[in-house]
């Protein structure tokens, strides 16, 4: 395994300290370092890459593999003792309904992007204006973003070109304006996806190649994808995925201006006595000892749940929480899954997780006949262990001869196609992250408590689009089709909104440039800032927004000018 400290080990004074090395933190590090700033990145999890700071063309090497057992054994997600969480649907449930690793994201160098299938759609201009475009909705708390699509567009393009995104320009009938085409054409489509695309076409809908941050060509020193079929939930053994580690973080490390400490878990933010500024962060080192780290600026880049928890554990009532909004407006994405079973084997497990998207069910703000939904993704049903567990735990197939027969017949994996509507989740003040009153991690730090209940807003969208998904599946030739029952807590792992940004300190936690209204040298930069979640996978927008926030630190008046040539 790699050293726990890599990059320029001689650096001892830093312009910025970034907590978390996922898409947001890596993007900030990349821009600051390429503009000559000295950056310290603290990552709680391990580093599964070898030679991330080595400029040789055959680096980094990885410890990843097409190994489903490993993925389920704590390689991907932090375990309960490290990241305990509790959950309830509302305060009426009492202190909690259960304890588990709810909505936990991977903790490792590269963050969630290391193990994601990296679907990379852009948001559309309307997604930034839902506060204005939607009528007032009881219980919901929609708001406009303090920036619009046009301001983010150059940063979308920068991320797409530096990380490497495959897609087909003009294929999405609802495509937002683009200043440049996709840097790479699409890779090989799934046969099952092609069947669904044809079924959708018969009904007047359009499936198009999914924009994905996976190489379809050798690109920037990384190879083309070989469609191993083990993508979402797996690290890429050959670095065909443009994950944050091999993209922006590696750029930062190779600049000579970055130092990365892995297995270094920040426990709390330390405030300057009597001042609204941070003095340091306290972290646990790989050997278990504690140390303070300092810098001029501090950037929270864990994820929407952990960012909020960090702020809340650092001071009674939370640092910079005069508005009482820290942790509130937690949004995930609602998820509606239609599955189809085909008589023939459609072998969706042989490719990238998802090769087609559809935006026809994104809807229009304020139109009751076309409520705001989201992107539809087509995908297969993955790998055999998860297949067998799904038969047994979700479809109530008894263990014994029937379970074995279902596996041999490949009912889900080899004959199944899923269409997943990942849709807008109404922000609500009552949906929040706070600290569980009793739950502790191994360091004695309070675990995050999620209070989350769905709003009728997303349930109405599901009621409209669910039957239409089944129409498409049957038109594609499915023998059977049905909607999978969803849980109260959607398992999208798309986390947003707990440190909402905006102009007004009464209705937002952070300023439009990511800085806390009430803490002068503390920034957020990722999904925690999102006032609304949109209906699109968020990783590209998280990366683009973090890139813009870093660029604003360099040049507040003209952040685009801080973008390196690409």
């Amino acid at each position, binding site marked *: 395994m790699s050293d726990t400290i890599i990059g320029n080990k001689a650096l001892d004074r830093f312009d910025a300290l970034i907590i978390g090395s996922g898409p947001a933190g890596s993007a900030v590090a990349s821009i600051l370092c390429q503009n000559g700033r000295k950056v310290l990145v603290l990552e709680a*999890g*391990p580093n599964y890459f070898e030679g991330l700071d080595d400029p040789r063309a*055959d680096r980094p090497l*990885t*410890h990843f*593999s*097409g*190994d*489903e*057992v*490993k993925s389920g*054994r*704590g390689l991907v997600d932090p*375990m309960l*003792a490290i990241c*305990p969480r509790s959950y309830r649907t509302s305060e009426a449930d009492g202190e909690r309904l259960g304890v588990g690793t709810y909505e936990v994201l991977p903790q490792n160098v590269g963050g969630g992007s290391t193990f994601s299938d990296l679907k990379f759609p852009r948001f559309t201009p309307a997604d930034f204006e839902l506060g204005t475009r939607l009528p007032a909705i009881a219980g919901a708390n929609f708001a406009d973003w303090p920036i619009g699509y046009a301001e983010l567009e150059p940063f979308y393009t920068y991320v797409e070109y530096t990380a490497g995104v495959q897609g087909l320009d003009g294929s999405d009938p609802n495509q937002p304006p683009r200043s440049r085409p996709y840097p790479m054409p699409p*890779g*090989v*489509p*799934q*046969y099952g996806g092609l069947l669904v695309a044809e079924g959708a076409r018969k009904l007047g809908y359009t499936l198009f190649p999914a924009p994905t941050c996976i190489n*379809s060509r*050798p690109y920037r020193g*990384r*190879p*083309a*994808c*070989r469609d*191993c079929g083990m993508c979402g939930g797996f*690290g890429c*053994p*050959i*670095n065909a995925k443009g994950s944050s580690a091999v993209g922006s973080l590696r750029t930062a490390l190779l600049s000579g201006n970055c130092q990365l400490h892995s*297995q270094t878990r920040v426990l709390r933010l330390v405030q300057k006595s009597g001042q609204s500024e941070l003095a340091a962060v306290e972290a646990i080192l790989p050997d278990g000892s504690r140390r303070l780290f300092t810098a001029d600026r501090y950037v929270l880049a864990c994820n929407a749940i952990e960012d909020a928890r960090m702020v809340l554990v650092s001071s009674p009532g939370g640092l910079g929480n005069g508005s009482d909004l820290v942790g509130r407006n937690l949004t995930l994405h609602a998820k509606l899954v239609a599955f189809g079973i085909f*008589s023939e*084997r459609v*072998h969706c497990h042989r490719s990238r997780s998802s090769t087609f998207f559809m935006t026809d069910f994104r809807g229009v703000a304020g139109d009751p006949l076309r409520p705001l939904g989201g992107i539809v993704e087509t995908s297969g049903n993955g790998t*055999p262990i998860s297949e*067998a567990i799904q038969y*047994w735990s979700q*479809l109530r197939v008894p*263990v*014994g*001869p029937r*379970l*074995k*027969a279902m*596996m*041999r*017949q490949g009912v889900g*994996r*080899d004959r199944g196609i899923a269409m997943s509507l990942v849709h807008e989740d109404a922000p609500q003040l009552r949906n929040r992250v706070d600290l569980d009153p*009793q*739950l502790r991690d191994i360091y004695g730090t309070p675990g995050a408590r999620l209070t989350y209940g769905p709003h009728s807003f997303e349930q109405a969208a599901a009621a409209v689009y669910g039957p239409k998904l*089944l129409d498409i599946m049957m038109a594609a030739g499915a023998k*059977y*089709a*049905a*909607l999978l*029952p969803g849980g109260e807590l959607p398992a999208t792992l798309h986390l947003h909104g707990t440190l909402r940004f905006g102009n007004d300190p009464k209705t937002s936690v952070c300023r439009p440039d990511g800085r806390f209204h009430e803490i002068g040298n503390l920034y957020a930069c990722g999904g925690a800032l999102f006032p609304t979640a949109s209906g699109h996978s968020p990783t590209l927008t998280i990366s683009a927004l973090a890139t813009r926030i870093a660029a604003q630190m360099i040049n507040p008046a003209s952040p685009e000018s801080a973008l390196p040539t690409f």
Partner: protein
Amino acid sequence: MTLPPEAASEQQRLTRRQFVRLTVVGGATLVWAAGCQDPPGVEPGVEPPPAPVPTFLTAEERQALAVLADYVLPPDDQPGGAALGAVEYVEALLTALEYDPPRLLADGPFSDRNPIPLPDGSPSNVYPENSFVRFLPLTREQLLSWRLLLYGSAGVPGGGPNDGFLGPVLGFRDLCRQGLAEAQKLAGGRPLAKLDGGEVDDVWRKLRRDFDSFVTQWVIEAAFGAPEYGGNRDRAGWKMIHVEGDVLPQGYSFYSEQTGRYEERPDLPISTKDLRPDPDPMDAETILHLEFVVAALGGRKAP
């Protein structure tokens, strides 16, 4: 690193086979994309004497677990859970921390099951070293988490962080031992292997819910996971369900810089219909089960 004898001999065998393959291919031009490890050389040397294999289960417990493994995946014309190696998988899991590094997370990036592709995407005769036979060191936090999971609160100084209000953590080792003892008790003290099918069924239905859940999960992982964890013996689990398992470095597709096109494998296509005969068509009982599930979910059925 200490390997159990069977793993050590497996590593020796793999090394010898890999040497043969590398020798056969001679000077053929190979594609090795950025991000892949260099094809390793063969390191001659004397293997250290095998260390004793840590064990946890008694012979009686192994027999009982084998019966339950075969209840989860019964033998028919294909092996059942026990023959696939479920007992060995579970025992390897329960003793994983007795190795250094712990035998929990197999290394990567490749096993030696798939060849390195040639420039046109076709398979070469060269196979990578099997890195799955090595195991990754755990971080301090992972080690502590696994110690709690396997040994429970009693195995960790100070216990679990939330024992005060959630109660002590029951480790997998104790869970397994207690569950097997419960099964023996439910069998009236007779060895489970002596029970007929109906009697095993009766025992299973009366087991503690968490124990039967873990046994089910472990048997599934053993049957369909990578063989380096002790199960999926001779890859029979994968063959039975018609999957290839890990497929890199060859993969299912290959982008040829010579032609500027993606090539798919003719035997295992991605974007086109698979023309091979269906090796295991859906049977009447599967269709009945699907119809039940789809009806319960308010779904649709093609006319």
